[in-house]
């Protein structure tokens, strides 16, 4: 009955026109800051706190609370339409919400997010209504030791849920406690850490500190990132109402999310972010079709959105019943209550029932307002998102300045904000979190008081904390939490959240190379946990792109306009099911020609899991053909295979490198690398024996995440982990490839290729070649000698990653198995266990399809093809009827002659080829 009266009383207050207005303003502003990325509810509430000084306490708190839960609504809009979380708790909504938008179901996603938020928000307020008075009565009996123990538990939970390392979170809490001691000591009256500065005598102001840590530093971080205009999906004007099928799928997730969110919201430190991640994980596990998650599952929107709103409601419980804030936003609300002369805590319901019940009931109204208002306003928010950041951030900064100044009409507070802005910026740079600092700073003085009072009570014995059952219980829980992970599932969710959160940050332009590496590692670990790891394609792409950029800053340079678009680009054409990510070659298009690339075994291994090819390596010409080839390869139709491709841009080797190669050939230098095999000699010959010199290959990663748009099957966790691994390996290759290294022997690793035709190679004596070409010696004889390698199909050989590889080296037969066929190319699966070191490539076609190839790959390739075709057996699969043409040996001979001539020139050696080769 007491509750019933309370609610009625609260309604009387909340329905007053002035309070309705404040509630409306609150939820409106809340939605606004939720929509705008880079401005969160904490900073917004801090900003608006001074403007509520004139209002009554009830109105002020109603408005500030409205900002908080309003932001939970708004965040989903940005996530769904732009794939950037509008605020942190909407990170997961990006995954499925944006995927739904891509499928043209933005309306349903926005609708279910709003309805889910409304339902969960209302449910959590109901729970708050019943729980809060009850808890307030219980906590009335708390003395200083209980409070102290409770706050210890709160801080522990906070660090337990920390996204970065626990040690760092604990350090932040300690720093926050120290910050909380600044000012006049309440017990002894002495000044601490004031350094004679006036402003500090009252302690560090919460508002300036929060605006510095969450407002200014956020802007500074965004400034140094490159921000590019993301594609914004046009907001739907209709279809916002979810269909019956949507409801059927979403009802249980919403209910589960509400319960989960509410419970996690109560815990200090957990809050809305963890709640949304946990809900996502739960829904995915509960789902009968977990593979749909990440590809536009409506449950993945409904659950987390419900959870973050429920958490917003739950977070009020510790504030209203204990006077302890559960998160940074609640810390400001606590400050707001105190500024308005109210003491939050168990006595609030008795001392200020109007505030207590007014806030709670206003949340029913606010939630209804949000639902009614926001669906029609979505187009407005979408337009707002198009405002460039360049015009936005000066205003954000200005508001922060005004806010900080107007708290006490004092420049000193502005300076405090300035300092903490820089501190916050550095903290983020060094991977610290601001939230524990804020909470500890607020809790600090209370905690200190409770501690000192307890010790005075117990006359100096710490036993008081343990002997009293409640405080002892709290401390025990804290100890357990700190020492071993109590709930493994929660922790795992936390780790997953962490990994996903960080990857998702790539969208938020916060992912740096080192972090991306870390993400890769984590995702890899998580890959063992089925269903735990799911990233959107863009997130994978961005994570990898971040790494590429980290290592190759030059790619960002202005020389290559349009490059970034390609790299981060969202494929616009429906045909492009694969997201292309390219570490682009800056160079002349015409110079590019298809080349083979060698990929080390370990890298290839990364492309495999359980013997299945997760990622194929494709010799590819990067460029406009990417899409076409992706299409041609049938990724869209059949499989959802992740594909990594290696692109090679030839570059002439320098003079010294040619020298080194020739040393390999003739073994001139005693201590130098010597050609060990005939085959290796051959290879080296090839390497330098092309038309005008050898080339160095550049390996560039192209990561294509194949998706099948028809059945919407998302790439699985393992695939993604394999993909990231593979991408990292490729990146390693890039780095290696930049270094000039001595050439490693290759031939011993090259498997015999059984069924290919004979090769007239440079290691043979002139006499034998002459005979072979004249048909005087059977092919079999040649073959025995030279089956190690094939004639390079292309005329140039390559030095890839320190290994000499014959360009267009042979298709690997042993252990290789064709997995795809295309008029222009073949795909081979190569088992990682095989020692094949030559490129995964395919033989050049022998069947006269040069024309097709010419069309598809460009004239250069066509010309090469033509040449090879002319050579006949060299490139193709060899059948008995397919005899070598008589001029083959001549061509090869000419080439060798020319190379020797040129090499001799380079080396300054007089004489002919025999001098060089036979010495």
């Amino acid at each position, binding site marked *: 009955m007491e509750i019933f009266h309370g609610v009625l009383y609260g309604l009387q207050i909340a329905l007053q026109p002035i309070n309705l207005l404040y509630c409306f303003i609150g939820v409106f502003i809340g939605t606004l800051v939720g929509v705008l990325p880079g401005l969160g509810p904490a900073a917004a509430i801090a900003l608006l706190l001074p403007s509520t000084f004139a209002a009554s306490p009830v109105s002020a708190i109603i408005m500030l609370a409205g900002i908080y839960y309003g932001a939970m609504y708004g965040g989903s809009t940005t996530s769904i339409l732009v794939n950037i979380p509008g605020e942190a708790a909407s990170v997961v909504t990006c995954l499925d919400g944006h995927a739904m938008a891509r499928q043209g179901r933005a309306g349903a996603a926005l609708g279910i997010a709003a309805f889910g938020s409304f339902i969960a928000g209302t449910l959590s307020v109901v729970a708050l209504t019943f729980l809060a008075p009850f808890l307030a009565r219980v906590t009335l009996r708390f003395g200083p030791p209980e409070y102290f123990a409770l706050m210890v538990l709160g801080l522990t939970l906070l660090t337990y849920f920390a996204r970065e390392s626990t040690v760092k979170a604990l350090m932040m809490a300690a720093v926050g406690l*120290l910050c909380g001691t600044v000012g006049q000591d309440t017990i002894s009256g*002495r000044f601490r850490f004031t350094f004679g500065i006036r402003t500090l005598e009252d302690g560090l102001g919460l508002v300036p500190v929060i605006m510095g840590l969450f407002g200014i530093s956020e802007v500074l971080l965004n400034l140094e990132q490159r921000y590019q205009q993301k594609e914004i999906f046009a907001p739907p004007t209709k279809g916002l109402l979810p269909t019956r099928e949507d409801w059927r799928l979403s009802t249980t997730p919403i209910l589960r999310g509400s319960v989960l969110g509410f419970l996690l919201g109560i815990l200090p430190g957990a809050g809305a972010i963890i709640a949304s991640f946990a809900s996502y994980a739960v829904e995915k596990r509960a789902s009968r079709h977990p593979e749909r998650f990440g590809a536009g599952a409506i449950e993945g929107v409904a659950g987390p959105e419900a959870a973050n709103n429920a958490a917003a409601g739950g977070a009020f419980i510790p504030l209203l019943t204990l006077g302890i804030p559960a998160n940074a936003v609640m810390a400001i609300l606590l400050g707001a209550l105190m500024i308005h002369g109210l003491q939050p805590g168990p006595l609030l319901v008795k001392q200020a029932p109007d505030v207590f019940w007014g806030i709670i009931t206003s949340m029913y109204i606010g939630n209804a307002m949000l639902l009614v208002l926001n669906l029609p306003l979505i187009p407005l928010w979408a337009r707002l998102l198009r405002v460039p950041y360049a015009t936005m951030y000066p205003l954000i900064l200005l508001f922060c*300045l005004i806010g900080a100044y107007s708290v006490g009409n004092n420049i000193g507070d502005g300076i405090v904000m300035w300092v903490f802005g820089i501190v916050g910026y550095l903290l983020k740079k060094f991977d610290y979190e601001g939230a524990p600092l804020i909470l500890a700073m607020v809790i600090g003085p209370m905690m200190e008081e409770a501690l000192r009072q307890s*010790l005075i009570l117990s006359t100096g014995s710490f036993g008081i904390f343990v002997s009293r059952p409640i405080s002892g219980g709290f401390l025990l829980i804290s100890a357990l939490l700190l020492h071993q992970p109590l709930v493994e599932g929660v922790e795992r969710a936390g780790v997953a959240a962490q990994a996903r959160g960080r990857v998702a940050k790539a969208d938020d332009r916060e992912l740096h190379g080192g972090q991306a590496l870390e993400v890769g590692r984590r995702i890899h670990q998580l890959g063992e946990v089925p269903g735990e790891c799911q990233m959107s394609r863009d997130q994978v792409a961005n994570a990898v792109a971040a790494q590429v950029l980290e290592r190759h800053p030059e790619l960002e340079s202005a020389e290559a306009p349009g490059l970034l678009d390609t790299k981060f680009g969202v494929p616009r054409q429906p045909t492009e099911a694969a997201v292309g990510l390219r570490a682009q070659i800056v160079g002349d298009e015409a110079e590019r020609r298809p080349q083979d690339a060698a990929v080390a075994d370990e890298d290839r291994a990364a492309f495999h899991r359980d013997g299945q090819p997760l990622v194929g390596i494709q010799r590819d010409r990067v460029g406009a053909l990417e899409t076409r080839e992706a299409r041609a390869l049938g990724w869209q139709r059949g499989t959802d295979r992740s594909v990594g491709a290696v692109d090679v841009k030839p570059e002439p080797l320098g003079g010294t490198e040619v020298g080194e190669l020739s040393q390999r050939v003739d073994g001139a230098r005693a201590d130098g690398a010597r050609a060990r095999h005939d085959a290796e000699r051959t290879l080296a010959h090839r390497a330098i024996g092309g038309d005008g010199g050898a080339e160095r290959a550049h390996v560039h990663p192209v990561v294509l995440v194949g998706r099948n748009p028809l059945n919407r099957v998302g790439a699985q966790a393992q695939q993604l982990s394999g993909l990231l691994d593979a991408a990292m390996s490729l990146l390693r290759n890039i780095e290696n490839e930049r270094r000039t290294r001595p050439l490693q022997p290759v031939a011993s690793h090259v498997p015999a290729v059984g069924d290919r035709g004979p090769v007239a190679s440079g290691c043979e004596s002139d006499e034998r070649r002459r005979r072979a070409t004249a048909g005087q010696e059977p092919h079999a004889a040649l073959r025995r000698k030279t089956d190690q390698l094939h004639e390079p199909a292309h005329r140039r050989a390559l030095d890839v990653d320190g290994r000499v590889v014959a360009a267009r080296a042979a298709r690997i037969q042993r252990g290789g198995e064709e997995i795809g066929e295309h008029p222009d190319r073949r795909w081979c699966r190569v088992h990682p266990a095989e020692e094949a070191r030559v490129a995964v490539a395919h033989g050049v076609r022998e069947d006269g399809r040069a024309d097709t190839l010419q069309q598809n790959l460009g004239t250069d390739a066509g010309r090469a093809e033509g040449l090879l075709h002319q050579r006949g057996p060299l490139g193709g699969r060899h059948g008995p009827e397919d005899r070598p043409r008589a001029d083959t040996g001549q061509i090869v001979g000419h080439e060798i002659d020319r190379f020797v001539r040129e090499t001799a020139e380079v080396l300054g050696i007089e004489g002919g080829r025999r001098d060089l080769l036979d010495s």
Partner: protein
Amino acid sequence: MPRDLVSGLFWLAVAIFAAVQGLSLKLGNLNRPGAGFFPFWGGVVLGLLSIVLVVSSRGRDAAGGSRARSESSKPLVVVGALLGYLLLLETLGFVAVTFLFLLLLFRLERLTWAFSVVSAGVGALASYVLFQLWLKTQLPPGPFGF
């Protein structure tokens, strides 16, 4: 140098400073803890944690934790502009200094002069109206009375 090492050493210094300050503020005894009690033990805890961080950072962080490159000097300019704003606010008055602040930042973003001047002017006046006239915030007046 690993980042954790750098930040750990920094916090260690902070911790030592806090603990020393705490000592000078008098710890009191357990019966009646003094003003320095909490700062001292807070400093000790922070110091221990920083040492843990420093120790655990060795070797681990060196490879993976490369620091993000700063892409521009913009944050520096903005930090300077913020400080300038605060220092000039009470001498020049809210409207003038806000105008200059916005102008500087818009120009920093390479927006056109015309756009920058107009936007800065509108921004300054609008915020004056919003905060001073409507929300009754006490903003410092300049020599011209606003």
